[in-house]
């Protein structure tokens, strides 16, 4: 897929989906903050980018709610980093948010697709 110049995604859209993005990215395995931001940028092909000033407050909010859990991990030959993983509560929230998002996107798609002549 060619690397696209990042487009300005509407701020409100980004805000509404940010939690879903983070929860889904750490569903498979724990990740640290920088990795999460790189995954978002890469997988969105640059369309979405979370900088340090917005990413970490969000991570801390999710941690406070108990949807994710942060832990300092020191791997051999590396600095210690803070990895975040999904909690069981977070899994339920992810499933619910995912379902809501899919329903919402399907509804938007049905409305915005060109009508057959």
């Amino acid at each position, binding site marked *: 897929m060619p690397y696209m110049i990042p487009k300005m995604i509407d701020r409100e859209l980004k805000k509404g989906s940010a939690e879903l993005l983070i929860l889904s990215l750490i569903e498979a395995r724990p990740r640290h*903050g920088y990795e999460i931001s790189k995954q978002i940028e890469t997988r969105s092909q640059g369309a979405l980018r979370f*900088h*340090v*000033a*917005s990413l970490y407050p*969000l991570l*801390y909010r999710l941690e406070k709610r108990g949807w994710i859990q942060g832990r300092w991990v020191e791997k051999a030959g590396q600095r210690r980093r803070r990895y975040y993983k999904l909690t069981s509560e977070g899994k339920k929230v992810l499933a619910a948010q995912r379902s809501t998002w899919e329903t919402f996107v399907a509804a938007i798609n049905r409305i915005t697709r060109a009508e057959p002549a």
Partner: protein
Amino acid sequence: MNATEWKQAIRNQLADLNLDPAREMEIVEELSQHMEDRYRELLSIGASKDEAHRAAMAELNQNKLLTGELRRVERAVKYEPVALGAGRTNMLADIGRDFRFGARMIKKNAGLAGLVVFALALGICINTTIFSSVDAMVLHPFSFSNEARLVVLFERKLSIGITRASISPGNVIEWRAQSQTLQEIVAMHNREYIMTCDGSPERCTSYAVSASFFDTLGVEPQLGRGFQPGEDQEGREQVAVLRHAFWQTRFGGDPEIVGKQILLDGKQFTVIGVMPEHFDFPYDGGEMWTPLVFGPQMTREHSAHYMRVLGLLKPGVTVEQVNADLDRISKRIEQQYPDGEAGHTAVAVSLNEWYTRGVRVALPAIIGSAIFMLLIACSNVANLLLVRASTRRKEIALRLAMGASRWRLIRQLLTESVMLAIAGGTLGVMMASWSLKAIVLGIPPGMSRYIPGWSQAGLNHRVLAFTALISVLTGVLFGLLPALRATGTDLNQTLKEGSTRTVKGGSNRMRNALVVVELALSLVLLIGAGLMVRSVIWILQTDLGVKPDGVVTMNLVWPREKYAQAQQRLNICEQLLERIAALPGVINVGAVHALPMSGKIDGNSFQIVGLPEFEPGKEPHTDFRIATPGYFAAIGTEVQRGRSLNEQDTAKAKRVLLVNDAFAARFLKGTEPVGQRITMASDSDKPLEIIGVVANVMNADLDDLAEPCVYLPFAQNPVSYMTLVIRATGASVEIVPAVRRELAEIDAGLPLSEARLMTDVIYERRSPKEVMMWMLVVLGLLALALAAVGTYAVMAYAVAERTQEFGVRIALGAQTADILKVVMGRGLKLTLIGVGTGLAGAFTLTRALARLLYGITPTDMLTFAGVSLGLAMVALLACYIPARRALRVDPMAVLRCE
């Protein structure tokens, strides 16, 4: 850009958020890693260092997004974290945090904290107990509202050494008429009655007092009323106010007692009131108060001086002004009545000063002991706090390194000290409350005569305020020094030190100095105690001039109306003594009008026949007793020369007397006393021949055998009250019912009272000195215990500090003796300095005990040496125990830790 710079940039962003320092550190670390990764990423895609730095910083500083978002998410700490030393403070929140932190620290080291609290509680308990006692005994011994304006009046005859004498009735009248400085003058005199109530007679003592007595003192009865003006006039005087204890024991606390009639000497008296429980003035064993009537003869009486008198100062008048007034009046009286009042002057002494004079003698020693105990306790506390601060050196250094201000840490440490001091003060007050109750219960009842207010000793608001003040002051003063020391540390050095490296220098010197202070103060207290113990032993072993074992005494009074004639009294006394002598077990029996060592004595001036007469006003003075022939054998006083009184010394026979050794030595030195004659001032035309010399008898204060005394025969001086003295085998009190039966057979209306063993009479006199002795012994032993604990704590810490050193020494071949020498050597040095300092102090300070000591000097060498040796041994034992611990150090374990 390195990690440190990213961290600082992030911290700047977070500065306004007031986050918990631990949380802030976490966020800073996490974000700085992200920033570094981002910076590297930008460099990797071709940006220059400056461009990468700018881009990364732009993302961080993006419209203050980070600060805003984190403010919504993270909880601000409500107080300034000490470790980061932020500029703003919230005083109340800080203090609250200090208390919570202090409580955690105290709990963490509960053992040491417990020692501190206990040492402080002990010092505060003793001070509170002593202050309460001094408050009750000296400062506020009375509950009279007019106490501050009351004075006791005395006559004086300084030319013959009489400084405090009773007053003649005539003088009472003259002073009332002429005084310009006294609002009221109240006369008091004990009166013996035979009280008949519900049929059975009994003897009772009444305080015969002026009608204004209760109003002058400013006391109100608990029931009924006091005397009204005019009730001390002839015809209106048949009223009585009862003492509380008498009302309880004799009348069962009858709530309807007011208005009841009692018979006193056959006359009807109406009970008009009952006084409150603790009111017993003038403390002479009286059961009631009755009006003192001045008959026509008494108003002109200037020769017999037997009244006790109180005065109430006019508002604004001082005691000095009263004395000047009395001088003026005395001169006038002397001119009017030269026969009875020549050379007599008058003096006024404040009521408080007079009645607390016995305790005031001991006051410097009592207060000194209390202060010493507090200083010892505080030295102990300071030492323990220093040890505690030393164990927290690293923690304090770390906090200082992390930005806490020194003042903030000092405040924190002081808060902990104040908390310990408040705990110690609270415990001390509780212990003092128990101690005071125990003391009041344990004091012999008779002692309240000498120390009014004793029974009321207890905690009051003055005492509690005093205790609260010394608690907080102790916490601040003795916590300040360790706090200053602990926070003045060299941070770099402290943080680099191993955990058990010895810290030399100021901290050690301070602890050593405090141990020396404790040992020195303890030694002074112990020496004081030792001197008192030896003094009391001297009193116990001294020949009193009587042999009290097996002797019973009882008081007998002849009512004036029924036994107005001298012959009547003589007959009764003779019959009774004969009957008692015939009882089984009785060895000797006699009677005397003033029992030795009972506090009762009479005196008179005299002339020696054949020698030039003394000028009027300059006659010598002697005590005198009136006795029956069997008295000296019964009481056990030796007749040394001549003969004793016998049945031939009747009213019609030659007038005779015996003198004691002190009289002969002072007034008849170099001559043979037997056969010489003297005349007494009260009967100057009837010379008395000396028929014998008896041994001296100890005075009432148990400190002087050298007071002259003469003995007159009862047959020639038949007074209306005598004390029977009966020497019997076995348990002497068993004789009392038999004696009562014998008297009842002679006259059923004549009771006997105050049956006491002579040993109890002497004990009552001796007990204040024994109480003082026990007080100093207990304080001394407590001081010793505290000093031992303080010494042990310092030595134990010193050994713990040097554990590694000892391990290395032992590993290098040091023997037991070498280690002991190191540890004990230090302990011995401290002990010797402490004992030496204490001895120097004791030489100076024990002089305060001089007036309390008998038969021993304040610098008695045997006491000084013995006590010093004892203290040194205890101190060395306190050093030996931790020294043994040093011997058990495992060098391998110590070296592994190194």
